């Protein structure tokens, strides 16, 4: 079986599956059980300053998006950082780390944006024996109103500044957790790197309102008639997170900066995708909150099997494998021609491909009297919509036309050479150069 042992910014763990800083890592009881269940590491629920802890609302703190069978697709929360006293958390972390020396235990921290605050708290926390710090610059609600969390994460200069303070205050690795509630994820990532951070982790939750109650006209979750935006996470946010991870991994300024991938990781496959896009490990919150700690067993068996099948012996073989293939649109090969192909044996004649292409695409699918659906090669632009809407797996596929074959839509033979927009005759800058 493949070796899943993982080393992330020097922190060792039995596998790359960590629990993200959130309710699953809120206390000793949870974390012990998580480790017993097989999780490789945890980022402890975010710690705040000494003194009276924050308070949470006493009404509902979650909202959700469900599929028809109430499969949870997206979760939204308005929870704050830990609402338990700092000393209690520290005592518990000390005990857990002592009993689980081989598991990763990272402390998530959020204190006011003042040098003293950060420099005072990190050494205190370090006494627990924790393996590193994660700076929570992501929390998008509540804490942000108090000038913390994403209020810091949205200002690259603050990120750089705080990261630098923290690096001055500790020898342990410092991971900066990024908020996705920003126009370009590279700005905060670059700032973290400039500040000396050892890694970034992303994404934290996305500003969201999951639904509106159409009787009370208030957003959900509703607390005494009012609601506020929360942070969105779970399977629905994965595509957003994957893109942000990929952007950081392929950006020359940040390339090589370790990334802990977070956002919608639900199965081993999601984890493998994050890792292929450059994440050194992954963190999970919603999936554990939905199904419990046991899911990690599927993640472990699934990733090992996949790595065995691919002949990978360590997770390092997987990390970043897809990064070279993420590029800009302008570099895509415009001479690569494909056409939709319908497998008539698999087709169940639902006509969804027809409705989609006829009403909203390129009128490239024909329907016969007896409901046989065919692609008209002279109209098909290979948009892939039919593939996406067809309810049958692999029923419609995209066939690549070989060089020299006729593209009936353009009336031109397919060119063998690579050709992108930068050299395309329709590109105004190409014409200008001529």
């Amino acid at each position: 079986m493949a070796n899943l042992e993982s080393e992330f910014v020097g922190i060792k763990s039995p596998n790359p599956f960590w629990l993200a800083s959130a309710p699953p890592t809120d206390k000793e009881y949870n974390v012990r059980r998580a480790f017993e269940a097989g999780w490789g590491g945890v980022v402890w629920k975010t710690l705040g300053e000494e003194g009276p802890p924050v308070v949470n609302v006493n009404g509902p703190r979650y909202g959700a998006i469900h599929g028809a069978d109430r499969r949870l697709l997206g979760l939204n929360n308005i929870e704050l950082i830990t609402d338990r006293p700092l000393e209690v958390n520290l005592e518990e972390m000390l005990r857990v780390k002592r009993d689980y020396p081989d598991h990763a235990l990272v402390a998530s921290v959020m204190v006011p944006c003042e040098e003293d605050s950060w420099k005072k708290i990190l050494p205190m926390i370090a006494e627990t024996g924790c393996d590193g710090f994660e700076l929570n610059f992501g929390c998008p609600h509540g804490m942000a109103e108090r000038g913390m969390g994403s209020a810091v994460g949205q200002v690259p200069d603050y990120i750089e500044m705080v990261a630098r303070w923290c690096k001055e205050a500790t020898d342990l690795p410092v991971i900066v957790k990024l908020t996705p509630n920003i126009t370009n994820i590279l700005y905060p990532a670059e700032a973290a790197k400039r500040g000396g951070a050892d890694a970034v982790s992303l994404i934290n939750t996305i500003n969201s309102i999951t639904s509106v109650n159409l009787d009370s006209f208030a957003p959900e979750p509703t607390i005494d008639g009012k609601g506020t935006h929360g942070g969105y996470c779970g399977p629905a946010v994965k595509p957003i997170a994957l893109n942000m991870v990929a952007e950081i991994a392929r950006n020359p300024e940040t390339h090589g900066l370790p990334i802990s991938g977070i956002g919608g990781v639900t199965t081993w496959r999601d984890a493998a995708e994050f890792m292929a896009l450059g994440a050194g490990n992954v963190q999970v919150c919603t999936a554990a909150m939905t199904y419990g700690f046991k899911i990690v067993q599927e993640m472990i068996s699934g990733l090992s099997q996949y790595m065995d099948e691919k002949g990978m012996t360590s997770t390092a073989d997987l990390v970043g494998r897809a990064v070279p293939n993420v590029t800009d649109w302008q570099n895509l090969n415009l001479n690569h021609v494909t056409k939709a192909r319908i497998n008539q044996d698999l087709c169940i004649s639902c006509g969804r491909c027809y409705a989609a292409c006829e009403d909203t695409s390129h009128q490239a699918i024909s329907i016969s009297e007896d409901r046989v659906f065919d692609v008209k090669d002279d109209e098909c632009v290979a948009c892939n919509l039919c593939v996406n809407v067809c309810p049958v797996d692999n029923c419609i596929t995209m066939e690549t036309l070989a060089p020299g074959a006729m593209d009936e839509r353009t009336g031109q033979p397919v060119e063998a050479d690579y050709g992108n927009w930068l050299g395309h005759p329709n590109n105004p800058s190409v014409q200008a150069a001529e």
Partner: protein
Amino acid sequence: MTSQMTPGVVAGRLAKEVIDDNFADLHAPLDGHEAMVAADRCYFCHDAPCITACPTDIDIPLFIRQIASGTPEAAAKTILSQNILGGMCARVCPTETLCEQACVREAAEGKPVKIGELQRFATDALMDANVHPFERGSSTGKKVAVVGAGPAGLSCAHRLASKGHDVVIFDPRPKAGGLNEYGIATYKSVDNFAAREVGWLLQIGGITVETGKSLGNGITLSDLTSEFDAVFLGIGLGGVNALRCDGEDKDGVLDAVDFIADLRQASEFGTVEIGRDVVVIGGGMTAVDAAVQAKLLGALNVSLVYRRGKDRMNASDFEQDLAASKGVRIITNASPRGVIGNGSVREIEFEYTDDDLAPTGETFRLAADQVFKAIGQTLVGDDLPDIDRGKITVTETGRTSVAGVWAGGDCASGGEDLTVTAVAEGRDAAEDIHAALSA
């Protein structure tokens, strides 16, 4: 104490609770969550094959989407605008040979979308709220006679009323509904649904039901054509085919439809008498319903005997499986030769036949306290328009050979003898009558 073993024809073979449970809803209604899950399986097909397969052309993907988006009342309106008895059809349609057979998910994985059960979910929601979503058009002053208060007549009447015509329905039976009230198996239409549905349907207004009146018994077709602007005949098939074998007149040899009608009208199922040994002759839905219900009443042995092979039975696979699951023994390729008994039936003799119905010479006897005949219904009445092969000849839109007279449902040619077909034909005739009266 009476039990299943008690000889003869007696009531109360099973405890009351057991019988009541036996006659409960065949399919328990979907709850809200089940409906969501079932609705989510619909692919919202383009030009959906299920619509084509529905005799009333209900826009199935649309109504399912309306359920999925939390508006079952709107779904019901989509259904009922095509099929005013959508509630009953949701319960009695042999969906396995209609919409659900055509569903692409039947082709894909042998598990069609539960169209019938979803249709019931939607129509129940609306009817439970006692909402009648259609309004009667302004009065046209035209009068139409509808003969027969079965699905064909009711559907025709409702559509005519909605167009503003005044409708009078004539029916000899004390209750309107036709076979919905007197024929459909008890476990398909529980809680007096047929009567509730008729009451709900009549909320449109402009329809008078005159029970105790029938064509050929006080009323003639020419009376009607002179008194009304148009006439619709939806009289169903009132007669029953004879066995044509010796001893058919002995006590205990009964028409299955009468047994079923009595059962449907019984206030307590436990008071209905049933034989210890029951033989049902026939291979259609009526035969299956009689056999199953005999078993549910506590008959010890129920045999359904059909003269041809299993594949030729009119009852669908689902119905046959239902019968088998209730303990009915199905015997095929056997024809009745004689009813034996002294005054009352005691035994019945059959002869095996080959697939061309040729006798094989081999016979067998079954003990029988009751024999139910379910070998087809026939059209009865003298004063009717032209008839061909036992049915009133009609055009696509239900016109008969007599000007101003339309017909539809079981009594008319074309289509299968099903509730849903009767509804479609009544509706289409109403549209044609309306067009004729507006011309």
